[in-house]
């Protein structure tokens, strides 16, 4: 590993000059070797300068909480590389993205699909003449849904190949929410992009803005005060709690378990109103900025408001959880539905709670701890997982994680007694030139990864964003195979993936 990679850590900036620059083929074999040794690729992206394209890859090594980076350069006439996707399906979408964003062709890629129909894309296929994967045979029929769906939700297209009620294959085509986020990050001074980071996906405002702020702190060498670190943990766990509870409500609605719909709905309101009491926004916006947080909390919030909410929500959540699990109409509807086996899950590289529900213990709070989690890691215990990977497992895991979030908030509260400051100044002249930083935060869906590259004048050369949905949409497509098409809404809710976070 040592010779072809440079070791770094979560939120730590490294000089671009120190990153190995390997010949393309050697870069490929370095990646293949890492993948063979059970490392995971957490980011793999290109950066254009003139006619050259520099490509970086980042691997996660959980045994040392380390991240490893390496790079290669594609000069003007060189626009292809041998694809690794057939051997390692987990990287298939990175390769598709390299092709779509930069025209780097992964030779012999098994399915070079458009990712999000990027603005100014290199693809020849248009969004409206995209040929979906077809199936032939007597009685095979095709169902197309979207981009506008029945509910108030984001747009995407789903194409089902069915035999009777059974889905043989589901193809998901996204890109409707594509609004050029990565290029917007280059348009303004880097330190003024917190609001944009909060709008990558609204349901993970805290997860993304923390990843952004941590990247900025890595680049400027600023350490946020401890008090800010704990307030961030509280904000992130409130976000996780609210989303898990909200989704349990939505799942209940889908299976006509109406007490769940209304009780979880009400509990979610209590949690997001707590985020509002903390930050002035029900989604925690405006709270986290590079260098710390903007709002402090008073003793009334710490001693009364928050503890009352936690106690109350936990008690009522336990009641409705018990009712959900014990209702004869619920569990039989969830078990064996939308199965994603451990083998398939690890092969295609899903992340976050989806991976944990399929028996893969991974969590960046644990594997690459940051901020308050450096301390909390040892108190979190083992990462909760389930083996079966069906809707039941994902439901029960969310229940377990919601409870864990409440525990983590309690633990954070203990540390908020000191009256230290909540923010340190971060200024542009502190930004390290010619550097790369990789920043990972465990959002409620899974790992949020931001990679930032600066140039010689401290300008932003590349801002790469990865929402966990980038990996997990393919997991949803796999989970639907051999299920009834009417189970789609239920499976979909159990994943609840982000369109805006994927489409960027």
């Amino acid at each position, binding site marked *: 590993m040592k010779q072809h990679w440079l070791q770094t850590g979560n939120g730590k900036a490294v000089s671009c000059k120190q990153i190995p620059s390997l010949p393309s083929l050697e870069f490929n074999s370095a990646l293949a070797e890492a993948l063979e040794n059970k490392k995971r690729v957490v980011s793999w992206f290109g950066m254009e300068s003139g006619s050259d394209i520099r490509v970086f890859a980042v691997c996660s090594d959980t045994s040392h909480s380390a991240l490893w980076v390496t790079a290669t350069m594609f000069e003007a006439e060189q626009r292809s590389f041998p694809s690794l996707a057939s051997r390692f399906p987990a990287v298939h979408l990175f390769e598709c993205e390299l092709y779509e964003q930069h025209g780097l062709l992964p030779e012999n890629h098994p399915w070079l699909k458009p990712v999000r129909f990027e603005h100014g894309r290199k693809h020849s296929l248009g969004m409206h003449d995209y040929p979906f994967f077809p199936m032939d045979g007597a009685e095979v029929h095709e169902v197309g849904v979207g981009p506008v769906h029945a509910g108030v939700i984001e747009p995407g297209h789903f194409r089902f190949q069915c035999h009777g009620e059974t889905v043989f294959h589901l193809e998901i085509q996204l890109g*409707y929410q594509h609004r050029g986020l990565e290029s917007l990050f280059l348009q303004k001074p880097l330190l003024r992009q917190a609001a944009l980071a909060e709008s990558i996906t609204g349901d993970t405002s805290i997860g993304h803005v923390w990843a952004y702020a941590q990247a900025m702190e890595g680049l400027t060498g600023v350490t946020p005060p401890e008090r800010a670190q704990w307030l961030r943990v509280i904000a992130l766990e409130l976000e996780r709690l609210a989303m898990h509870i909200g989704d349990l409500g939505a799942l209940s609605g889908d299976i006509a378990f109406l007490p769940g719909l209304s009780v979880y709905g009400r509990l979610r309101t209590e949690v997001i109103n707590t985020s509002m009491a903390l930050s002035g*926004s029900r989604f925690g916006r*405006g709270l986290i900025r590079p260098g710390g947080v903007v709002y402090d909390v008073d003793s009334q919030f710490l001693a009364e408001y928050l503890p009352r909410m936690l106690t109350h929500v936990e008690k009522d959540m336990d009641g409705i959880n018990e009712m959900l699990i014990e209702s004869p109409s619920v569990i039989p509807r969830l078990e064996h539905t939308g199965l994603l086996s451990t083998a398939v899950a690890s092969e295609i590289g899903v992340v976050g709670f989806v991976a944990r529900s399929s028996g893969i213990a991974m969590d960046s709070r644990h594997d690459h701890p940051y901020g308050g989690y450096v301390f909390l890691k040892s108190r979190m215990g083992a990462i909760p997982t389930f083996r079966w990977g069906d809707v039941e497992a994902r439901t029960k895991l969310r229940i377990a994680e919601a409870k864990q979030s409440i525990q983590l908030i309690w633990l954070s509260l203990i540390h908020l007694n000191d009256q230290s400051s909540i923010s340190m100044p971060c200024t542009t002249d502190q930004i390290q030139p010619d550097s790369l930083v990789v920043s990972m935060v465990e959002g409620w869906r899974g790992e949020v990864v931001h990679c930032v590259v600066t140039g010689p004048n401290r300008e932003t050369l590349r801002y790469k964003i990865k929402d966990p949905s980038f990996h997990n949409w393919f997991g949803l497509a796999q989970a639907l195979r051999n299920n009834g098409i009417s189970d789609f809404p239920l499976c979909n809710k159990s994943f609840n993936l982000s369109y805006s976070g994927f489409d960027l």
Partner: protein
Amino acid sequence: MLNALKVRWAQGYQTVDHIRQVELNQRFRGLPVIESRACPEDCQACVEVCPSQAIQLSPVRIDLGKCIFCPDCSKVCPAEKIHFTPDYHLSCNEREGLVVGSQTQHPAVKTEERIKQIFGRSLKLRSVSAGGCNGCEMELNALANVNFDMGRFGIEFTASPRHADGLVLTGPISENMAPALQATFDAIPSPKIVIAVGACGISGGVFAASPALDRRFLEKIPVDLYIPGCPPHPLTFLNGLLDLLGKKYS
């Protein structure tokens, strides 16, 4: 069984009754108040820091159609001219009415007789999400929960545009979504209304400068109601709509 009763008992009555007067937490950032005192000479701090080009100077005015209530301007102003209040009555049927300064009127929604007559008792809406972050959609969904219960006012979201009386637009309108937005609008039978929700829907919000947008839809189609926020609080939406429909609910 006992547990079920306990859960039901704990749920109690959750509906927000007085949706016009509810007081939100003091930290909630609604209507900005701009003081009339003079700015320090050559100061542009608020303009420079604003993520969505919402501020004009001399005199200072904030365009609520662009503002994301972040509230960075209020933090950097050396004269402390800008404060945010928890007032969530922000909607307006005129685009210009969203620009607030120290001397301007409170944004307000005028009841439109024609709209009141046709849709006053029942209004069905089709939502189209076009390139936003999903924050607005989550708040629109919250309107149907037990707290806000929008259905009690005869206002609901429908699955099919054919059953709708109006379009609720969220998001800055990405190029990739523009054709589907137009097709959905065309599928709604006339007479119909258009409601632009959130900084994105109204102006493009934090994404306004992106070349990946195509906002030509709004050049052709007039908007009946603007609902500011990023995302708007459900109460901003609900009150704006009740005003538009002339519902005298208090």
